């Protein structure tokens, strides 16, 4: 009786192995959904002016150009403005752009989205070399041509004034 059971099990086992496997249909590649198609990259940039404000009576560096905000308080309390750097950073959603500041910190700009046709939302942060965030996060919504200022970082008996303008 035991032999019969053993033989039956062996036959069934061999039969199951010998049976052809059920055909596996290759899944056709998913067609890209219309709303997930790569959106056209937003072409926008940021012009960054790095200014050094001091109490040296040197006036405003003519290279800075027209910046009437410097004549208003509290910027008017500084008597000298020197242009350290003027640069233009292309912004994209896929990659953050960094600018090394003269005090060793890093300004990081990233394009978030374009909530309206003519405006963009971007984030800015300033990090310190030793790992701490100086300004962890700043989020703004701006149109091309508009500017905002980040100021107050101490640098060489003065402060840094960062003028960030959105450009196309």
């Amino acid at each position, binding site marked *: 009786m035991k032999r019969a059971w053993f033989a039956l099990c062996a036959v069934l086992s061999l039969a199951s192995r010998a049976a052809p496997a059920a055909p596996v249909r290759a899944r056709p590649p998913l067609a890209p959904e219309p709303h997930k198609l790569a959106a056209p990259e937003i072409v926008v940039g940021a012009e960054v002016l790095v200014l050094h404000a001091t109490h040296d009576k040197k006036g405003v560096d003519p290279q800075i150009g027209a910046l*009437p905000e410097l004549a*208003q308080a509290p*910027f008017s309390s500084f008597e000298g403005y020197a242009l350290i750097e003027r640069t233009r950073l292309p912004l994209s959603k896929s990659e953050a752009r960094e600018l090394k500041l003269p005090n*060793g910190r890093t300004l990081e700009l990233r394009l978030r989205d374009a909530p309206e046709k003519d405006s963009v939302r971007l984030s800015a942060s300033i990090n310190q070399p030793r790992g701490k965030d*100086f*300004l962890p996060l700043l989020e703004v919504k*701006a149109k091309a041509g508009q*500017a905002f*200022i980040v*100021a107050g970082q101490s640098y060489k008996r003065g402060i840094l004034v960062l003028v960030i303008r959105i450009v196309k």
Partner: protein
Amino acid sequence: MTPARLMRYYDGELPEVAARLVEHELMAESELRGELQSYEAIGECVRQWAEQRSRGHDDLVDDVMRAIAGRPYSKRVPRRRSSHVLAWVSLSLGLAAGAALLMRTLTIQPAPASLVVPSAEHGAARSVAIESVDFGARGGTVFMVSTTSSDTPVVWTDDDDSDDDQRNEPL
């Protein structure tokens, strides 16, 4: 403005320009002036209490020194009971004011480190809208500088890192 920033102003710890910005805000907001006055009241109470404590401490030191020298007590000014009462009253007032201020802080400013600036509505057509700012552990303020052609938002961070200048000086 965060309470921490106002306290730093009261303690004279803010940089010059940042202190001027606080003074501008104090001129504009009576509620902020009231908060500053409460800090001054607390400071005065604590100062008086500390003075009373230091007087008592001086008496004790005199007593110990005389005992060591083996001299009898002389010209010891007895401590008046009223000074103890004044010290405890001052301490109680200080603690009560501090507790009241803490309650106000907790109810009015739930997230001092992260400031949502209502400038999205202000001059939206003329200026950048600051949607949110996180100053982290440092203080800072956001204000608008207006000119004839534009309104420009300014994010002002407090920076009292004394080693910044040293770090950037040539070796």
